[in-house]
């Protein structure tokens, strides 16, 4: 297990390295010059030239990439092109919000999705199963910005249950959670459906296994059989899917952050890509990809822990 963990960590680091280096190359080749986009209309040609030089934009790409990693390794993410402050400030002030958002979404999708899926499988073929099936598939289809906007209208404007914007008062956990509820729901809803379908399918498979028959044959209570014996196995693919789903959730986070005006990595990356604010893009993507890879890693390890059969893939 430790060796497995170790291998996964090395792989994860390598993935981050390659993903970011490739991204750097793509970013630099994108049309759109940061000097024009960022410096605004009043900037003179000299200001721009000076800016290019300061940012090392005139070096060949591989040199820029080497410098980039050199700086990262010495703990410096560079300086925001746009605001004269360290990229790390922008990125690390955004990160907790996105992490909270993603984990909120995972919370919604895991809790509701697993319940819905287990419930469907348990009542297979009944009209309750059909309804929950149609519901969960409809959830999958709902784009997160649509869900975000509608939940905003319904729960914030009409019902006034939840706030519309922002991330809540710093230091006040309740206020943070209160502000988190709707956006994370908007992101999580599609995953509720996805997880529900996966759990239902693997649950049905598990319920047909011999060991479930064994559990029944020993007269174990129904709840134990379904929620302890079958679900424990059925949950494994869902954990895997959720771990990898973080990538998708980071994408949806862009929408939720825009609609709910929350600070976060998603909108930070989106804004800085549009603004060709390379240092911020790179810093934020480094953290985002690092976050993704960590989550996938954790999901793998959870899976390995939940499933004693699990060894390396081979």
């Amino acid at each position, binding site marked *: *297990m*430790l*060796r*497995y963990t170790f291998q996964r960590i090395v792989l994860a680091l390598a993935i981050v390295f390659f993903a970011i280096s490739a991204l750097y190359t793509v970013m630099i080749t994108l049309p759109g010059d940061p000097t024009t986009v960022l410096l605004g209309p009043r900037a003179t040609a000299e200001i721009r030239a000076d800016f290019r030089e300061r940012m090392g934009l005139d070096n060949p790409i591989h040199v820029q990439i080497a410098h980039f990693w050199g700086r990262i390794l010495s703990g410096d993410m560079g300086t925001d092109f746009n605001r004269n402050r360290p990229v790390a400030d922008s990125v690390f002030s955004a990160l907790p919000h996105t992490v909270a958002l993603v984990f909120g979404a995972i919370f919604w999708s895991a809790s509701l999705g697993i319940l819905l899926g287990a419930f469907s499988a348990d009542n297979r073929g009944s009209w309750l199963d059909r309804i929950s099936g149609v519901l969960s598939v409809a959830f999958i289809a709902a784009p997160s910005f649509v869900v975000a906007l509608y939940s905003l209208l319904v729960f914030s404007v009409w019902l006034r249950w939840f706030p519309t914007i922002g991330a809540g008062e710093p230091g006040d956990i309740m206020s943070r959670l209160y502000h988190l509820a709707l956006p994370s729901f908007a992101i999580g809803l599609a995953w509720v459906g996805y997880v529900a379908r996966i759990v239902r399918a693997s649950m049905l498979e598990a319920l047909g296994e011999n060991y479930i028959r064994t559990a029944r044959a020993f007269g174990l209570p129904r709840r134990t059989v379904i929620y302890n014996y079958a679900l424990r196995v059925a949950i494994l693919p869902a954990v895997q899917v959720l771990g990898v789903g973080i990538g998708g959730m980071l994408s949806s986070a862009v929408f939720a952050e825009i609609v709910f005006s929350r600070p976060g990595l998603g909108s930070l990356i989106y804004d800085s890509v549009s603004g060709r604010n390379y240092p911020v893009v790179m810093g934020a993507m480094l953290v985002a990809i690092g976050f993704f890879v960590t989550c996938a890693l954790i999901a793998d390890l959870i899976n390995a822990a939940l499933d004693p059969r699990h*060894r*390396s893939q081979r």
Partner: protein
Amino acid sequence: MTALLSLRDVVVEFPALRGLKALLAPPEKRRVRALDGISLDVLAGETLAVVGESGSGKTTLARAINGLVPLAGGQVSFDGMALDESPDWHAVRRRVAMMFQDPVGSLSPRKTVRDLVLEPFAIHGIRLQNRRDKAVELLADAGLGPDFLHRYPHQLSGGQARRVGVARALALTPALVLADEPTAGLDVSVQGEILNLMNRIKAEHGLTTLIITHNLNILRHIADRIAVMYLGRIVEIGPVERLLSDPAHPYTRALMAANPEPDPTARRERIVLKGETPALNARPPGCEFHPRCPVARPDCASRAPVLEPATTGGRVACHYPLTKETLSA
């Protein structure tokens, strides 16, 4: 008669430990020896039966012969060719056929019976005048009618699938057949049909067979010689009658005596083996069988026996082999 197949000191290893344990364990513990120095000859035209405890390496032996598991040491030669020196497997496998332990599982699930029995021809690029006729002929040999041509493996019973496997193994009239437990899990009637078919082809084509089984009841009827395996080694090998009547190795004797007979009145004398089969990576010192051996003596724990000719014929790896006299005493 010359040896068609001969093995010398064949060793097969598998990775044993994984994860942290593998990192911390001494190198010799990281791998297990599933086969540890197997030497045997199979003569042209004979049938050698391999018996032994489950997990003793019987299947591994068959796979090692036709290159499905890599050798960690030793030599295998088949009809003069050295199979341990990366031979042209494509050509070798045309002459060495294999029947798998799992009858349905070894058939490609989305192919029809017709495609399955003709698969050897397709693999070896042999053009057939009339594919359908050939398939019918092969199936008929195995006792299946033409109505099976278009069935899929899951539509076959175990016995029928087994017959397809037999038909396919024998399609290119191989020189050597490696049959892995061809009767496991079948009831006695179907079992009889399969063995009869193999016997017939053997008689017609002079087939050489290595048959793995733990069904002791059939040995007498099909085998010329028996090899007994324990913990990846051959502990006794010899003519079938001798091993059945007076086994020299205590394990062989325990095995033969263990066979329950369908006679409710039969009197049974059994040697009850003590303890568990040791793990492959925790082999006992000296004679590996000594912790469970009913007739072990103190020096068995320190000296490892080698295969030596037994007084009664064949060879046995035991310091104190059983004889007729010790048996009756």
